[in-house]
Each structure stands twice: as structure tokens, then as C-alpha cells.
């Protein structure tokens, strides 16, 4: 009974905290007392300018001095001088390595399960960790970063009034 009380109170506390924070709302920013909701990722600040993309796909920019609040789910980041250099670099080779790493990692992880039956825990765990830690996780992080870089690049260009994919 005592355990149940602790478990229920733990989940209730978590629920209250979650409800009070802005994790329950979709990404939004407040600029000059006006709210922009349902934003798409990424939200970033570069050269004292906030870049956002609305749900309709329109890119808006605001001076960072006018920004009142950026919600937590925006995961906003500041693009420093060093990161600007990364934006212009090609990611072809990294994409290739990541796309090759993913099936290799999946294969190792999948076979580690069958190893567990026949060769014991140590060998299968080694294989499992190799598959996930060395192949799958770095590849996923790299791909995610490259996609974000591409989106940031596109947003900067669209904020200058350029259009993409015209017919």
C-alpha cells in the first residue's frame, strides 16, 4: 500500500509538472506580444536575428531584441561564427557513410539477439553494443544534424526572398 502511494504520488507530481510547463504546447515564440504557434524546426538565432518557419511554410525573421519568449519545444540554438562555416559544407560523404552504417548496425543488433540463445550474454551484448553505439547512434545523429543544416541553409535563403523548387 505504501509503495502504491509513492508510485501514484510520483506520477501525479510528474503530471502536474508536465502540465505546468510548456512541453504540452507545440513550438511557439512570443515576439512583441504576438504569439506565433505551430512552428517547424529548426528555430535559431543568427547575427541577432531570430528565424522561424510557420506551419504554412513561411519564413519569418525578427530582431532578437524584440523576442519575449521561446518555448522549450523549439529547441532553439544560436548559430555562432564557427557553425556558419559548417552550414556551407557539403555532406555527401557523411550521408553515404551514415546510410551504410545504419543497415550494418541493424544487422549486428538483430544477430546479437540470436547470439544470445547460443553463445551467451557477453558475446551477444558486445555485438549489440557494437551495432548500436558504434553504428546506429552516430549515423542517426549525423543524419539529423545534416538535415538540420540543410533546413537552416534553406531558411536563411528564403528569408532573403528567394524561392525554391519553382517550375
Amino acid at each position, binding site marked *: 500500500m505504501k509503495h502504491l502511494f509513492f508510485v501514484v504520488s510520483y506520477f501525479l507530481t510528474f503530471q502536474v509538472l508536465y502540465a505546468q510547463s510548456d512541453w504540452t504546447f507545440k513550438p511557439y515564440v512570443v515576439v512583441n506580444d504576438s504569439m506565433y504557434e505551430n512552428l517547424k524546426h529548426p528555430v535559431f538565432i543568427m547575427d541577432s536575428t531570430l528565424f522561424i518557419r510557420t506551419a504554412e511554410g513561411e519564413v519569418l525573421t525578427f530582431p532578437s531584441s524584440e523576442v519575449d519568449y521561446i518555448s522549450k519545444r523549439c529547441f532553439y540554438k544560436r548559430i555562432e561564427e564557427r557553425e556558419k562555416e559548417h552550414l*556551407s559544407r*557539403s555532406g555527401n560523404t557523411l550521408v553515404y557513410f551514415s546510410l551504410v552504417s545504419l543497415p550494418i548496425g541493424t544487422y549486428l543488433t538483430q544477430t546479437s539477439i540470436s547470439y544470445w540463445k547460443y553463445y551467451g550474454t557477453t558475446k551477444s551484448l558486445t555485438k549489440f553494443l557494437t551495432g548500436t553505439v558504434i553504428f546506429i547512434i552516430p549515423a542517426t545523429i549525423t543524419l539529423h544534424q545534416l538535415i538540420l543544416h540543410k533546413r537552416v541553409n534553406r531558411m*536563411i535563403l528564403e528569408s532573403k526572398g*528567394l524561392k525554391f523548387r519553382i517550375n
Partner: protein
Amino acid sequence: MKYIVLALTVVFSFFYFGQELDPGYAATRSYIQFKDGSKIPVKKPVIICEDQCYYMLRHSSICDVKPIAEIEGFSKGNDVRWMDPKEFRRIGLKPIRGYLWGVVFFYPLVPGPGLFIFMDIAKRKRVKRMYITMKLK
């Protein structure tokens, strides 16, 4: 038979140099569209740096620059990159390396990474050429 095919390949390859750009040619692959409605086919990548658009023409490999105020947009398949002036200068002045890695990966290792490394080198060479040509103008 194989000598005939080889000879024909060599002969037809010379025809490439005899081509002239048709002014009425409608660009279908990667191109830049200007606000006056004209389209020009370009090679990858296209560089946007400080309100200027640097590009290389597809057929003649001539580098050119236009202010982005004159540009309407870019077609699908373009590799448009926004570049900091410092980064543009760095790529423009830095020697290109990585041929050895490209060759080593291409053969005897797997050809995929080698191909991508060579693609990166080709793009970097174009950026370098754009920078040097624009500086010389």
C-alpha cells in the same frame, strides 16, 4: 566489331565540342530563374554570399555573379548554399586535397565513398574557380 564501336565512340565524343548554345533552349535541369522570366542552366553548387549569387553556367562553364535582388528562385535539383564571406574566401584560397583518399576508396576499397569524395572535390573546385574568377574581374 569492338574496334568499330570504339572508333565511333571516339568520333562522336568530338561532337560535344561542336555544340553551340541554342538561345531558345528551355532549361529543364537545375536552373536559376530571374525576375524578368529568363532561365539559365547552371552547375552545382550555386553560392549565395552577401546579397550576391555566384554560379557557373552549365554548357560553357563560365562563372558569373548577379545580385539576388534580380533572382526569382531556383529549380528543383539545385545545390544552393549560403556562404559566409570568410568561408568563401577560405575555400577560394585553400588548395584542394583529398584526391588520394578518393582513389584509395574507389579502388581497392568500396567505390561508393570514393565517388562521393570525388563529387565533393569537383564542387569545391567549382567554388574555388568562382571565387578566383570573381576576384579577377
